[in-house]
């Protein structure tokens, strides 16, 4: 039959298009993901810490914690990625790190992230930003800390997190910053 090759070609084309679409969706970054740029260790050997926990590790931790701590496991399960950068600030990198943090904050403001906490105390400059999906969930959390004589800290948490669970986790683990963030999220 003459129609058979055409049907085969159409089926193959549709399958290929579907596979390409799925691959594109998988490689697209999550809405809560924020690119910090290239952060290099200070040349003078100062402190540099980089943590990057992806969803495979996080979901494994959630499975381990499920029996004993189901609430924490439930919260962790909503997290897809955790990135933390701590960089020692010295004369050779102070300006570049300040510019990096400013660029990140400007980018977040442009993309509609909400600044929920701002602290400027002495030489310490702290900003906490969240990206929410309506009132349902927090898709991303960014914390920027800059201490001109000491260190800079950048944190990005990506996931599908319920605001009330952030506050609960802060209460259960007695983590003050999390309590504040949770309270701010519940208010907004």
């Amino acid at each position, binding site marked *: 039959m003459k129609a058979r090759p055409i049907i085969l070609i159409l089926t193959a084309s549709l399958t290929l298009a579907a596979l390409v679409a799925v691959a594109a969706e998988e490689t697209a970054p999550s809405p809560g993901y924020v690119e910090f740029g290239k952060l290099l260790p200070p040349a003078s050997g100062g402190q540099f810490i980089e943590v990057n926990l992806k969803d495979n590790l996080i979901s*494994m931790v959630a499975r381990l914690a499920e029996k004993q701590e189901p609430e924490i496991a439930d919260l962790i399960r909503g997290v897809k990625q955790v990135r933390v950068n701590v960089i020692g600030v010295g004369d050779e990198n102070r300006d570049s790190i300040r510019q990096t943090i400013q660029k990140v904050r400007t980018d977040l403001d442009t993309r509609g992230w909400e600044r929920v906490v701002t602290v400027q105390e002495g030489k310490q400059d702290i900003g906490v930003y969240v990206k929410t999906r309506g009132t349902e969930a927090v898709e991303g959390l960014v914390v920027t800390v800059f201490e001109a004589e000491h260190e800079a800290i950048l944190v990005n948490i990506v996931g599908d997190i319920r605001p009330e669970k952030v506050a609960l986790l802060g209460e*259960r683990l007695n983590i003050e910053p999390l309590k504040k963030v949770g309270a701010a999220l519940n208010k907004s």
Partner: protein
Amino acid sequence: MDSMHPAAGAASPASRVPIPPSPSPRRRWVTRGAVILLLAGLGWMVVGCLRETEAHALRRVLLSQMGGDWQQQVHVRIGPILCTCVRVAAGFLDLEPEVHQALSAIRGAEVAVYRPHARPDLARRSDALRHADEVMRQQDWDRVVAVIDGHDLVAVYAPSRMDSPRDAGCCVLVLDPEVLVVVSARADLQPLLELVRTKTRWPQRLARTGT
């Protein structure tokens, strides 16, 4: 009577040797299957020994990137079979329950220690770490943690895919001016977590701090 043709009924010495019955076709197939499985198992073990482990790949790239001469001090590799033997042997010994619990968790480990002949150039650490990341990514391992503090570098890698906490792996690298240590291990995390929970009592501590 022709001597070349023994008379019927007269048995010659050669004809007294009993001829074994030929194996049945089923037994032949079972034997062939067992031989094939044995050869496949041996081949798998040989390939496993020859395949570059992630720890070996990490050592190789770090030593080449840091440059200089390094002397191997220690290299120990314990595979799953040896771990099982150690677990079985430990069962006959009077050890602490925690030791048995820890031994039951370990699936394999590899430790290598190198010392430099001359102090390495620590300015090459960042590039060395970047190359290590690329090599480990080819092995489907991601860097989870990196810490540089003064002269010390510590990095931790984990497999990109970990389907179950019963077979979790990690690779740790420690580099300072006097030593390079690479440790790789695979373990069942459940008994280890139970051990940590029992020893540190962290759930109770969490409950106390939460109130």
